[in-house]
């Protein structure tokens, strides 16, 4: 997006999310029905009040073609709804909904996404995402690719194992107060983390995100509608996403140009950032992202524990947005950055800047 200020004011007015190691009491449809109901009820709207609905999920993750068709049940799509679906993280569904609201014909949107990686081997599933001729047939897993990236950073003295451990510690301690954090600890120590054995060289277990099942629902509203639904809406001041080349050997893996560009276009540098929720699958990726976003010690990063604490493929990005939004809605913060990523080694990135009034 070019001139941020010329856009219609759109805000997150309601969020609901849930993550757990293994979803067993309910299936994805029931989970989403529950989250979507909570999300709508908390601002007193029904599906008939919603102008546009957009969701994100993956057939490959679910092991079923057209899996999102079943999940439409959770919305209650009768009478029929104006609706679309992206085979992407829910953060990109939110982007599509934001675009729809910009046209000005509808004032509210429901966004949701979910994933149940516990049903299969997510790291094998993710290998099918890679170049189908040269890379996918070698079945590299996403953490191995992220390890290649981490070693480049370490070899070039751009990060240290100590810095990585600090990121892991931050995640585990911050996650302690978050019921959705699967891996968290009140009293984990720096030494514990430094002494952890290497699992995917040079990464230790805590440097790698904890894979979790879950989902997230968000309601967006424009202008006065947002003000009428929510005392303190979390206004989207800027939102942008960009993609880098897929070919790892071509990229400078110590950087994420698309993350930098998305943040710049979303207006990250216009004002201070109180808090940030960033989406990486390793501690090293969080360090790359902090640098690309220009964050400093004044910004509280991943108060939820972040995706290291609970990583739900297809929902982690939308959950980052909901975490920032809920802290603005509850007046704990004024301005925050939320980030979503997709593809190997931070290939595709979305940045959303949210602000309270």
């Amino acid at each position, binding site marked *: 997006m070019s001139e941020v200020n010329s856009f219609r004011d759109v805000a997150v007015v309601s969020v609901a999310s849930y993550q757990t190691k293994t979803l*067993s*009491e*309910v*299936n994805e*449809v*029931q989970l989403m*029905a*529950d989250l*979507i*109901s909570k999300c709508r009820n908390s601002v007193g709207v029904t*599906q008939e009040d919603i102008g546009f609905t957009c969701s994100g999920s993956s057939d*490959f993750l679910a*092991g079923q073609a057209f899996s999102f068709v079943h999940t*439409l*049940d*959770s*919305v*209650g*799509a*009768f009478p029929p709804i104006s609706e679309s679906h992206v085979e992407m993280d829910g953060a990109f569904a939110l982007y599509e909904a934001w675009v729809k609201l910009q046209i000005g014909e509808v004032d509210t949107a429901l966004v949701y996404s979910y994933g149940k990686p*516990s*049903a*299969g*081997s997510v790291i*094998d*599933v993710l290998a*099918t995402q890679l170049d*189908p*001729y040269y890379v*996918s*047939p070698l079945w590299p897993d996403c953490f191995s690719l992220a390890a290649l990236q981490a070693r480049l950073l370490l070899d070039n003295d751009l990060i240290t194992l100590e810095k990585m451990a600090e990121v892991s510690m931050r995640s585990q301690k911050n996650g302690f107060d978050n019921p959705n954090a699967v891996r968290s600890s009140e009293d984990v120590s720096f030494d514990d983390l430094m002494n952890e054995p290497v699992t995917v060289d040079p990464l230790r277990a805590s440097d790698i995100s904890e894979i979790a099942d879950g989902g997230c629902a968000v309601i967006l509203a424009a202008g006065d509608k947002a003000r009428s639904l929510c005392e303190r809406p979390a206004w989207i001041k800027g939102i942008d996403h960009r993609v880098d080349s897929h070919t790892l050997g071509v990229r400078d893996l110590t950087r994420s140009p698309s993350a930098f560009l998305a943040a710049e276009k979303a207006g990250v540098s216009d004002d201070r950032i109180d808090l940030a929720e960033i989406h990486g699958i390793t501690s090293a990726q969080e360090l790359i992202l902090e640098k690309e976003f220009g964050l400093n010690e004044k910004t509280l990063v991943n108060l939820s524990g972040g995706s290291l604490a609970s990583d739900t493929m297809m929902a982690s990005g939308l959950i980052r947005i909901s975490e920032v939004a809920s802290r603005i809605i509850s007046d704990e913060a004024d301005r925050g950055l939320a980030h979503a990523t997709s593809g190997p080694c931070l290939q595709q990135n979305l940045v959303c800047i949210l602000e309270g009034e």
Partner: protein
Amino acid sequence: MTDPNSLPAALSEKVEIPESISGLEPVRSVRSPIRLVYDFVPSPPVQQYLRSYSKKKILGHRSPVDGAVFVPPRGVDPRHGVLIDESVELSDRGHVGNFCVTHLPIPGRDDLDIPYVSAWIHLDGANVGFLGLVAGCENDEVHIGMRVQAVWKEEDELGNTAENILYWKPTGEPSVPVEKAGNRAWEHTNE
């Protein structure tokens, strides 16, 4: 309209194949098999539904909104997006809401004689249909509204699966009128 046989200008430059391989039979395709294994764990209401089959019972789910009964249970009412937790036991009799005569083999179902009839079975007490095989009569006797009942496997072969019902056979009862068969029944009761 552009000519599909001439490449777009940008793609018309020929690829220079290195001399060392230019005279050889080129590789044109690669094989890359994919095998992914998932744990299929039915949701709790479906678990209950499948278990009830071993007792030759069919469970439905009743919507808290208007009492509509869904089979198999979906855990939610798809019209309203609300959770359902009330189970109801349904009859193993119903009618054919609609059907298809298929002349193609189905992967993994070598046991089916071709052509076979699959039908949307609307159980007595349910408000939507579910798919079942209709047999025990000539294919051309099957019609919308035909009354059918389940033919179950032998007691000692029963498991926790919908496959306990071998097929649905005609009961010989008078047919349900077409305008009240299948989904149309609901519109009717709501009039």
